[in-house]
């Protein structure tokens, strides 16, 4: 459940949406939102979170510290 998008910085470009391997990203009022229940930080899929890699604005897709980090099942 760990990444979130800082809405005030999101340009709404939609680049992250198709890259998310968990289909966790959807549009909400012109910006994008990560469903914390679906996000796995791309662990098990890719070396780096895809939303961070493709986002045009640095530090906009960030770890959401208000919830516990994602832990893959053992």
């Amino acid at each position, binding site marked *: 459940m760990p990444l979130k998008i800082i809405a005030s910085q999101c*340009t*709404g470009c939609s*680049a992250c949406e198709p890259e998310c391997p968990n289909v966790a990203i959807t549009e909400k009022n012109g910006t994008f939102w990560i469903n914390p229940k679906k996000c796995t930080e791309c662990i098990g899929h890719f070396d780096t979170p895809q939303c961070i890699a493709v986002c045009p604005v640095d530090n906009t897709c960030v770890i959401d510290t208000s919830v516990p980090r994602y832990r893959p099942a053992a």
Partner: protein
Amino acid sequence: MQEQAAEHKGCATSGSGGNASCGSGAGQRDLAPEIWEKVKNHPCYSEEAHHHYARMHVAVAPACNIQCNYCNRKYDCANESRPGVVSEKLTAEQAAKKVLAVASTIPQMTVLGIAGPGDPLANPEKTFKTFALVSKVAPDIKLCLSTNGLALPDHVDTIARFKVDHVTITINMVDAKIGQHIYPWVYWKHKRYVGEEAAQLLSDRQLMGLEMLTARGILCKVNSVMIPGINDEHLVEVNRAVKSRGAFLHNIMPLISAPEHGTVFGLNGQRGPSARELKALQDSCEGEMNMMRHCRQCRADAVGLLGEDRSAEFSTDRIMATEVNYDSEARKAYQAKVEAERRAKAAARQHELDALAGANSGIKLLIAVATKGSGLVNEHFGHAKEFQVYEISTAGAKFVGHRRVDLYCQGGFGEEESLATVIRAINDCHAVFVAKIGGCPKADLRAAGIDPVDEYAGQFIEKSALAWFRNYLDRIGSGAIVHQPRGDADIRQGAYIAA
């Protein structure tokens, strides 16, 4: 993203003999018939056509797969779209309806381009769905797209299948050592690449895509942003590289860069080129290949002739609320009228060229023209948002650029300040042709050494310029005046911030 030497390769690929001047300014007689068929009413691929035909872009492609130092994704691309205003994003269905509405209102609109505001091929589903919908309902409209090239090799077959026969690739370098200063990163196959590795990857993919397109007979234009001190000298090499791969046209555009754009280049004080620097580079590449000089670096949602933007008339709310009746017969009839006008223009030009044939002079000079389109001197000096610039010699009148002077792209709004701005923008010109001009600006222009010419109101530009030039040479011959060289001029830097 926002076009326009192949002398020889581009023209000659098609076989028959295009001559050495088959550039964007080339006319029917300079191009192979099948190439002329493709470009004759495409305003971006034919300078001659851009006076008569309009294009539209639909902003269906917001995502991008690379980052450029001249772009701030909070807005549209500063260089190939207008910064400061975000394009209204459209779905493919909305875009198709908008195309029909515009085509019905502006019968000379012949081209639909998808250019962003991100990269069309980073949004392939939206881009191709739009093309599919439009080609079904308006098959006479040409389809066109503009890309950074990273994803291009993956989509060449789809591009060919949709009969997109004009593709623009933005290529700013063919050397990763230079590219690393232009592109901070690219995103490819689930990974972000940085530095030289990113630039090398991008360059390889761009050139591969270009070769694949030209091998399929798709016309390619290469856009390059001229960034003084970074790639300005290198663009000669880029020109050679793209020419040898069959590009039809090379469009070297000035960097647009100001701190308020919030781009890396804007914030670190990277300057754009002056008018003279840009023209010198374009001239030096021209021997190699056709150069586009009429690009307006338009937005990803621009509508209209290249010098105008009518996008505000076609807001999504308004479009979705109206019934559109697509009348292709009415469009054809209007376009036939345009063709008659083009023939009259060419005949008038030839008539003046014949009259000039006896003159022998090495003088080459620039003139500025206030026009609303159709290749006519038909705009009031004070209403002009841009001036078109022609180079005149005994060889003819050649379009070499334009200068934006619209108030909102400048600092000052007072009359005095705006006149000073206009003079700075056309300071390299010997004369300015207008439909009408007031007494005060006339005197100020004369004081600045620019001849205000209003006796050709409503007449064809090239014919008028050549007639004036013949008279100019006569006056020099008789000793009435002495030919003086002019100075440099400014290229507008502040883009449409306030619009």
